[in-house]
């Protein structure tokens, strides 16, 4: 459904993606993990067709939500969701309402996006992506600045989208959340894919990239002591 075949990219002469081979299909929830600067966002932008040389997917089949996505104007939440219908050039009210509903912001439809909480605004931006009725969702840090409850709710929503046959590819910083919700984990470091496996199988590689330690229960645990000792 979505694939990169030996894709490389560089920024200012510096390689940010090196020979990336990746493909994913319906029903998968792929979490992209890795330290800052690993090339996760660039990888996602390549999948979205935003890099020179990358193939742009059909806008009706793929919705992309960038990191810290916001709307430049103080639109109402239903107007924001309606932007998701632009690839169709229609105002399919049913699709918009369904998107608002599944993202839990239907009761806020007439509120302005600048006047709701950060978590609600994040859901509104997600509703915009859902309103396209896409087959694939590409999301950059969809839960980065949300409280744990809101983060779990959004990840739950994404997991059910994947269960229903959709494809979710999301950059996630929180390895524990990725392990809890994703069906597949891609671990990146320095522009390369270090591991690409079921979350539990990929966890050791992720832990290594982050400098984490896996506990007895294989849950990632921060090695504060080691870092404190080093610096």
């Amino acid at each position, binding site marked *: 459904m979505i694939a990169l075949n030996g894709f490389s990219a560089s920024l200012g002469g510096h390689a940010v993606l090196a020979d990336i081979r990746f493909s994913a299909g319906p029903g998968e929830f792929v979490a992209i993990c890795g330290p800052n600067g690993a090339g996760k966002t660039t990888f996602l932008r390549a999948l979205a067709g935003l890099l020179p040389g990358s193939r742009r*997917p059909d*806008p009706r089949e793929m919705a992309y939500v960038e990191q810290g996505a916001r709307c*430049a104007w103080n639109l109402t939440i239903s107007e924001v969701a309606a932007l998701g219908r632009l690839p169709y050039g229609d105002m399919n009210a049913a699709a918009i309402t369904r998107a608002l509903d599944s993202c839990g912001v239907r009761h806020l439809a007439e509120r302005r996006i600048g006047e709701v909480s950060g978590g609600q605004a994040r859901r509104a931006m997600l509703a915009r992506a859902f309103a396209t009725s896409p087959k694939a969702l590409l999301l950059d840090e969809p839960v980065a600045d949300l409280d744990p409850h809101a983060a779990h709710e959004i990840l739950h929503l994404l997991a059910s989208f994947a269960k229903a046959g959709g494809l979710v590819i999301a950059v996630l910083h929180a390895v524990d959340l990725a392990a809890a919700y994703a069906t597949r984990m891609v671990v990146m470091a320095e522009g390369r894919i270090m591991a690409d496996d079921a979350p539990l199988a990929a966890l050791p590689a992720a832990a290594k990239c982050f400098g984490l330690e896996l506990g007895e229960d294989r849950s990632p645990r921060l090695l504060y002591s080691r870092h404190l000792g080093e610096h």
Partner: protein
Amino acid sequence: MRAGLLLWASVAGLAIASLLVGGAGFGIPDWLILWDIRVPRTALAILVGGGLGISGAVLQGALRNPLADPGLLGIGGCAAFGAILVFYWGISALFAPALPAGAMIGAALGCATLMAFAGQALSGPSLILAGIALSAFASAFIALALSLAPNPFALAEITFWLMGGLEDRSLSHLALAAPPILLGCAILLRLGRRLDALSLGESTAATLGLDVSRTLLLCCAGVTLAVGAGAAVAGGIGFVGLVVPHLLRPLVGQRPGAVLAPSLAGGAALLLGADLLARLAPLLLPLGSEPRLGVLTALLGAPFLVRIARQVAP
């Protein structure tokens, strides 16, 4: 929809008033005065004001910045400089269409510079700063042209023109300016969906199927035609593009596409009103002559800039 009807009704009302008010006061004028003086003046106020209003709305949408305005961003200044060069070398006396052509070339250069800047994903404030730099550059060149003016008459003529005005314009001015302004407005009016998509940022807009560079090119073309031709016949008139979309958003909503057509009508109404005010001022106040139209719009618009700046401050 109701707001749109109301706006066009006020344009019609102001246009009728504009046909009936003159230096001699209020009344139905001679056919000759009506046709040769009042009609061009009224029609030009509608065209120039409408062009400035919709250009402001499009620039604000394309650059995602409520402070964007053809004047503030230096596009007006570049148009004025282009027109002055044509003036200066006397080309406009030999070949009338050279004046709007010069203004449009200036506006196109200014617009392209800004869009190139905006394409590098500059933040809102730095874009406005780039516009201010462009504006300062245009002003410096205008000052250079003025200081090198061949005679005091040329100097006075250019200075007067820079202050903007619509008095003594003839049907030939109208014939010169109307086609490019109308074409520009037609281009800009069709950009609504594209500007809606851009409100999510250029990357997301591209994944929604938008051709971003084509959109910016169309914005440039429309603004260049409307603002350039407007500046050529009316001189330096600022703040219309800033004030009008800002006044209309509470009525028609914030969606960039929803602001376009109302801004066309709103700009026309605002400039008609300001021009009426300019004509009425000598009748009501002890003034020797009409205040310049560009001076009036600046007096009305500058306080607005402060107000908008306060609203967008983080």
